[in-house]
């Protein structure tokens, strides 16, 4: 251990670490790229669909029906596409925990592989929007932050708030915060319009514009708290609260102190 810590400051360490880092990034990238990029064979595909069917029959069919036909409490899933399944299941919204006014995001029940199988199964019965691949989601390269902000304020801010913090809708429904959401899921939400959200088709907002929106959201997420504590980025309500508690509290406290009799 001691030798390692001495070696830490050696001249060669910095270049060596750089090479190692580059190597690891390169391998990860090529492997990850290969995993999503490589076309899967027909046999693998049918195995995936079968796996998905098994999961569906076990976990979803009691509400959505054995043939995805839906029921009184759940919509039919024919034609919703893999994108919808991926969004609903991978963000933990499905399977639903309680049937209240809105299905909330929670810890996912199924893992990535199972979600993929489910999505493949649902998509195999009727065509619908697909899960956008990694190559389609390169928002850093294909998006523009400023344009995304403009699009966000025009199309999204009315429900999700100016900084994407979420907002209230009628009857206890709400637009959730878009902070901390995977780019893939943001994209899928726009394409499929889950729950109260409208569908933003590629004609309304082109794929490039969608990437711009994602880029702006990610920039807002990473933006440091300029000007001090952000107070939740929800506007003047929290500012008013702070003035009446901390601000006036301090000042009235000082006033009481100033008027105290000297002892």
């Amino acid at each position: 251990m001691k030798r390692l810590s001495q070696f830490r400051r050696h001249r060669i360490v910095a270049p060596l670490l750089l090479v190692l880092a580059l190597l690891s990034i390169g391998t990860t990238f090529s492997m990850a790229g290969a995993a999503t990029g490589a076309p899967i064979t027909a046999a693998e595909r049918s195995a995936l669909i079968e796996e998905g069917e098994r999961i569906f029959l076990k976990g979803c069919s009691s509400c959505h029906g054995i043939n995805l036909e839906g029921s009184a409490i759940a919509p039919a899933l024919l034609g919703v596409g893999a994108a919808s399944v991926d969004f609903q299941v991978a963000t933990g919204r499905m399977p639903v925990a309680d049937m209240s006014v809105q299905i909330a995001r929670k810890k996912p029940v199924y893992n990535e592989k199972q979600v993929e199988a489910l999505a493949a199964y649902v998509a195999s019965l009727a065509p619908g929007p697909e899960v956008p691949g990694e190559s389609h989601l390169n928002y850093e390269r294909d998006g523009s932050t400023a344009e995304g902000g403009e699009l966000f304020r025009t199309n999204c801010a009315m429900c999700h708030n100016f900084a994407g913090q979420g907002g209230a809708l009628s009857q206890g429904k709400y637009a959730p915060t878009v902070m901390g959401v995977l780019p893939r899921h943001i994209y899928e939400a726009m394409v499929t319009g889950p729950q109260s959200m409208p569908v933003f088709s590629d004609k309304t907002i082109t794929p490039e514009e969608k990437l711009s929106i994602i880029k702006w959201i990610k920039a807002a997420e990473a933006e440091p708290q300029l000007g001090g504590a952000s107070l939740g980025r929800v506007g003047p309500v929290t500012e008013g609260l702070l003035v009446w508690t901390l601000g006036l509290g301090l000042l009235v406290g000082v006033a009481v102190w100033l008027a105290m009799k000297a002892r």
Partner: protein
Amino acid sequence: MTASERIAGTVANYVDERTGAAKWMKKNLNKVFPDHWSFLLGEIALYSFVILLLSGTFLTFWFDPSQREVIYDGSYAPLKGLEMSAAYASTLDISFEIRGGLLMRQIHHWAALIFMAAIVVHLMRVYFTGAFRKPREFNWIIGVGLLTLGIVEGFLGYSLPDDLLSGTGIRIAEAIIQALPVVGSYLAFFAFGGAFPGEAFIPRIYTVHVLLLPGAFLALITVHLMLVWYQKHTQYPGPGRTNNNVVGYPLFPVYMAKAGGFFFIVFGVTAFLGAVASINPIWLYGPYTPGQISAGSQPDWYMGWLDGLVRMAPPLETYIFGRTISWNILIPGLIVPGILFTGMALYPFIESWMTGDKREHHLLDRPRNAPNRTALGVMSLTFMLVALINGGNDIIAITFDLSINQIMWFSRIGIIVLPPLAFVITKRLCLSLQRADRDLVLHGRETGRLVMMPHGEFVEVHEPISPEKAWLLTQHEQNPPLALEENDLHGVRRPGVLKNKLRARLSKAHAVSIPKATADDLKEIEHH
């Protein structure tokens, strides 16, 4: 006499020979002010006004009040290349390019919120202690005027940066102007120099915000303070304090030091807030375009109650003679605030009419000794609070997992039910406190010491309270209600029966109290 004293004397004499200031200074520097923390609340408002003037002047050096379109090319990347008004772009520049600009902006805005809050708590102090009574009715009206101007001035400042939030606010203001029957549309066109948003509005409100209203403020504040000076400050009752004297410390050196120090503390607290807490982050709101809106668009807190009233108004509209009257905006946006503020301004006269009391009052009331007034105040505050809560209904709904509709219905019912309820409860509380005061004077303080009598009975030992305290608890007046006979001496009904009946009833309600302890009561107890 030391050298420095001699020099000071020479200088003072030089000035006095030319201005005659010595006599005036001597009189006014020795002016006595009573000491109480609640008398400093108005000072908070005064000092934040000074901070507003200073920080506001700094902001005018760089703010460009123009709605001319520019392309943003500053250092805030997420807005780079966007079209926006010069007003918005220059506010971004103040925030990101000017050294200390963001801090100054935030100090200015926090100071505005503190200014309004301080005015409200100062108003509450004046109201609940009855400091508005003769001879201070004019000063009360000036105060109400300052509060009203403060709301307008604050709203204009909030509107100037031309960001998405302030544009939304201006849009609502335009809607309220338009809701005026018949003249509304014309007035709106006049104010905006054409259709909304136009290019004229921001430059116009800038002049009003930095020139007209600050001037009005300065004038009104000066008169406000001069009246305080001339009429002398009110004081709380206490030993040695009467309606004809002022007990306290002289202005110099005690209050010079206290007030001067307090100014810097207020500045410090404001600067602290400006340094650690973000306010009005206009770069996040984006530039205003009429096609955009954000969820949770709110006014600053001092307008929140107005927004809350508009939000809870049911959708009422009528069509008469080919004109639409939007009652849903007209009632909550103009009629209700009009009634509230007129009632508030006239209250000193209403109370004096109810009680028939036309005497001067320099000793303050303890709120419990004016149950009706205190209850009315709490009732008004409850009304405002329900409206304010509804103004933030969307933020409350999403923060506490509630339904916005439920909050709205709570507010709609609550704004009618809760204020009267608050009135009754407060009045009962005041009367209970009066009863407690009476018991305290008659039976003394409970010591918590239990003594077993020889025959086995346990009694708690009571200690008589100090004469000062007893005086404080019994010094207040308890005037009987006005006796307004329905018929005059000849058995003929007086004119204005209904008015007299109402006045008699109000006067009776105002005079309700628990009889205070008297010396006779005390003697009687001692006999037992």
